[in-house]
């Protein structure tokens, strides 16, 4: 579950960075076209990591139902954690 947690937090963090409000943090130096590319790449990477975390949870050595409860709970807590951290710097 440690690897699932890491993947979930990284995935949510990438999705947060890719959101319209926060994307300028990583793509402020780029022009509009480049910025769109960076935003899409970050967003896709975030979703891929989240998908990967779901796969890792499914194949974890726990009953599937319990793994899924873990995954949903981790996603919830990760969203809050990332939102608090990313807004602290603003």
């Amino acid at each position, binding site marked *: 579950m440690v690897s699932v947690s890491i993947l979930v937090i990284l995935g949510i963090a990438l999705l947060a960075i890719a959101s319209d409000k926060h994307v300028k943090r990583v793509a402020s130096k780029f022009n509009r076209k480049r910025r769109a590319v960076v935003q899409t790449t970050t967003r896709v990477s975030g979703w891929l990591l989240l998908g990967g975390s779901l796969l890792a949870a499914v194949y974890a050595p726990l009953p599937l*139902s319990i793994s899924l409860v873990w995954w949903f709970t981790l996603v919830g807590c990760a969203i809050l954690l990332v939102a*608090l951290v990313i807004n602290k710097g603003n």
Partner: protein
Amino acid sequence: MIWLHTYLGLITGWLLFAIFVMGTLSYFTPEITYWMMPERQVIAGDKPQQDQVHAHGQRYQVEKSIGYLEANATNATSWRVYLPTQRDHHWYVQWSEGKTRHLVSFNKDAIPIETSTDTKGGLFFRNFHYTLQLRGYGGRYIAGVAAMAMLLALFTGIYTHRRFFKDFFTLRKGKVTKWTTDFHALIGIVTLPFCLMICISAIMIYAIMYMPFSANMHFENGERGVNKAIIPSLPALGESTQAIDKRGMKKDILYSTILADLKIKWQEPNAIKRITIESPFRENSRFIIERTKSLTVSNRAERLVYSSYTGTPLEGYADESAPATFRRIMYGLHQANFATIGLRWLLFVLGALGSALISTGLIIWVNQRKTAYLNANSHQLGLPLSLRIMEKGNIATIMGLAIATSVFLLVNRLLPADMANRADMEVNAFFVVWLCSIGHAIIRPSKNAWYEQTCIAALCYLALAVVSFSIPFERTLDALATLDITYLSFTVVFALCGVGFITLARWLKVRLVQTSDRYDLNAKSVDVPNIKARKR
């Protein structure tokens, strides 16, 4: 939609907040009971330890329990042995003789505990959470209606805060009202799957009770009839002779053979939760073993049936029907018996966030209406009655519940052990303190009431940390010696709560001073033209 979200939240908000707080605490029901009964000690451990109990594990506990029952419960029709888990550390046996029910708990050395603390323990929070202390008076119906309202509020909330999805991961700093609104929307999304699961499973658990018409029409005993029809049971035991061996002695229960067979089937440590021995001393006696719920989401774990005197496996319980299984899964999801300590804490955090979601919603409504009213009616003194009721109610519900909970735990340690109706006194203290909080909120101006009640909560939790550490001090020393993290963590959590409330009180104090300064300035600005007018 917005109207529905607002008024559903307003009407059921206080009730939902109390239900959510109590439900969140219920994730640690056995642990709270463990703390509230200091005579209990660590029995079930994770790793094999040096002492006798851990060296032999559950086999030793079964052997001792059956030995005790064979000597002391000869006239009982059935025996029950509850083995300790890492969460409750409660090892006890139960039997009934006629209408008298007997319960004997053991310490880690298998010695019966003669005196135990008379307390409701963590079960008080759990029962309050769904019965509101009104069992038999419609408490479960009220809690069910609140769950339905919460479900509706969740869906309408998605529509009400739909713009938030555009600015996801946003918490505007600066103005408190803006931050609170963002935080409310954010935790609404964070806890959405959790709240949906909790509300739906809560409704499903008592679905037959909320919609009894079909059950009453098709079954003789209504809800009980449905349960009897869908819950599988074992065939009734017939008459049988006494179990006597060739030497004419009473036969011994072959628990060793049964446990050896079980060790192959259930390989996790401490796999047995409960053993029921039906018709002990009879030839046809049954040995029913129930597994712990750590590996299933359902609230019904696997059960195996053996013949007590031959050790052969018997035909067990039939598989439950799909609707019964579904209801059990809903039950299990709601109670989270399967959750290990990490997941349990995460669920606790989500429960606490759910409570914060409700409380921020209530506070936002009052603040927005108050600001709008004061802007529109600056010449008038005071607020309308409805706003005042909401404001005072918020204080009494949010801070009152925090204080009452701490007092409930505090009283557990301070009341004399031999006091009559001790358990009821703890509950009474909870409600009396909550009532005092309501009275205080009504008497005092709102901002002062917030600040003062936060200070009281901080004091109570700090006192609780001190009391938890010092009463009984031998228990703390024992916990330190055995590295009993569960027991010691209560002191730490109480201290952290105390520090949290101090921080909140200091923040409220700053706001209180700012508000009084603003009033002084306003008063001066009103007074200056008056003085000038008088001079003229």
